[in-house]
């Protein structure tokens, strides 16, 4: 098991390096002058050449690309993301304040997705072609086809503005406070329901796949109760593909938070990124993208490790 974990950790390194390098290349080596992102050309003209040259030197844009890259990597190892152009606060501090909020939202929405998706998926498989199956699969297709920002607004409109059961938007504090939970419900539902749809579809096919196996027939032939067959024999084996999808959904929830946090004014990484883009705050964009990209790589790693835990065959491969 330890060798497997070490091997996976080692394999995650190139992905991590790739993500970090992609962010660098996108912002530094893209066509056009990266200075334009910091100071639009019309403003640069007004500021005068001297100031432009000073800013250029401050960001290292006057050096060759490889030198900029090395400086960038060096800074990252010290967790130095620079300062926001607008507020001048260190970006790492802003990020540290926002990460728990995004995590909070991610955990609840993934919880909704996992519980709803797996339960409905298993029910659909067991009662194949029944009304439960048909309506779940129909709802799942609806879930993946709804634009999440619009779905968020519709929930906000119904629960927040018409029925006034829940606060329409904003952050209510940590999850252990009632206000914190009340504020998290709508954004978490928005993020979680689409993932629940995808999970339900794959759980269904995974369970159906297993129900056709010989050992399930044997279990039934032994006279075991259907509930035991499903839970002890089928579910255990159906878990592997489900965990894969859950891992992918962890990534989807992370990137989905960019839009959902904007909809619900949720002070997380996603909203920080969008604010950075709108105010052309290039170091903020870089920092936020890095955090999400690295979490994505870590989510994939976590999925791989979960496999090994569930399926011993993976460990001894």
């Amino acid at each position: 098991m330890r060798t497997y974990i070490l091997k996976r950790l080692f394999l995650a390194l190139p992905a991590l390096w790739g993500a970090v390098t992609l962010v660098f290349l996108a912002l530094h080596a893209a066509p056009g002058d990266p200075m334009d992102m910091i100071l639009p050309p019309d403003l640069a003209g007004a500021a005068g050449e001297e100031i432009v040259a000073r800013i250029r030197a401050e960001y290292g844009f006057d050096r060759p690309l490889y030198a900029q890259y090395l400086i960038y990597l060096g800074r990252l190892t010290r967790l130095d993301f620079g300062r926001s152009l607008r507020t001048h606060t260190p970006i790492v501090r802003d990020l540290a304040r926002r990460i728990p909020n995004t995590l909070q939202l991610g955990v609840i929405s993934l919880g909704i997705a996992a519980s709803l998706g797996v339960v409905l998926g298993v029910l659909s498989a067991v009662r194949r072609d029944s009304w439960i199956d048909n309506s779940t699969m129909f709802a799942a297709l609806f879930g993946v086809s709804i634009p999440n920002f619009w779905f968020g607004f519709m929930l906000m409109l119904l629960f927040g503005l018409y029925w006034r059961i829940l606060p329409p938007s904003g952050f209510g504090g940590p999850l252990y406070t009632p206000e914190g939970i009340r504020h998290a419900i709508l954004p978490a539902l928005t993020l979680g329901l689409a993932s629940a749809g995808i999970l339900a579809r794959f759980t269904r096919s995974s369970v159906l796949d297993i129900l056709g196996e010989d050992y399930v027939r044997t279990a039934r032939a032994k006279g075991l109760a259907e509930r035991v067959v499903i839970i002890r024999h089928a579910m255990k084996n159906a878990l592997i593909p489900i965990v894969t999808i859950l891992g992918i959904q962890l990534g989807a929830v992370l990137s989905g938070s960019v839009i959902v946090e904007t909809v619900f004014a949720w002070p997380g990484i996603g909203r920080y990124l969008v604010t950075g883009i709108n105010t052309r705050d290039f170091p903020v964009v870089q920092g936020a993208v890095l955090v999400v990209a690295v979490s994505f790589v870590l989510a994939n790693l976590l999925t791989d490790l979960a496999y090994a835990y569930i399926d011993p065959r993976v460990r001894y491969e």
Partner: protein
Amino acid sequence: MNERILSTTGPGQLTVMRRLGRRLRRNRGAGAGLVCLALIAIMAAFAPALTPHCYERQNLLNRLAPPSATHWMGTDELGRDVFTRVAYGARVSLLIGLFGSTGGLLVGVTVGLFCGYLGGRFDNLVSRFIDIMMAFPGVLLAILIVSVLGPGTVNLIVALTIWFTPTFSRIARGSVLTLRGKEFVEAARSLGAPHLRIIVQHLLVNSLSPIIVYFTLSVATSILVAAGLGFLGLGVQPPTPEWGAMVSTARHYLRDAPFLSIFPGIAIFITVLSINFIGDALRDALDPRLKSIGRPNAAHHRAQPGGP
């Protein structure tokens, strides 16, 4: 299964197409999806004939008017007719959906075919690069590209092309790897067929079914992502009507004029749902094995929108 369906040529091909057509016709979801999509395409193509209004013309005296006989979906914050803007918005969405996925298809399939066929160091290098791209969240990549290149239709299509390239490439490479050793490829090679002909006439043609299925689903994803980026202000720029941007502006009037956000949202939803219905039916028809035992398709769920 896939190669058996499409590897027949001549009269056999006709039977295959007929069988595919029959399977598709039997699927009610696909029928409904096709009808809806056709209606949306007609709305996009004949938008000027469908409405007497201009999508840009403002009427500040008639702001936020609720739906009525003259303005079927009401008017927006500048007094523009919402139905007209939804109809013209279909042009933008369908265009981006189609071109973004086609870009990914062309680049990705070409790369994948060559990787699978050539193998060796080239394949190794490119595949590692593709792995790295897939380890990067798609939505974020699109946001990053558009925020660097600037918003606009062309840049959005470039971003979507870059997003879909890795998955198309993996699908094509995977198919080629299984086909490369087959007898008909060996036969073509021993007859002295040039590499390009083997790649196009034998390998590409026989890898088509998973590519077609993923292409359909990627059009749906493109439309969702384009709307999401439009919502964030990174998509098509005003005054061109775009569904995502319309929902974004409408949020300021959610309480007083909810219809402003409801209609463009429904338009996105119905378009994407129709394409997903067609995509699902195509998958079932082209590869019935998937339907009967339902093995998850890694390439497909990788491609699910990162949440849009």
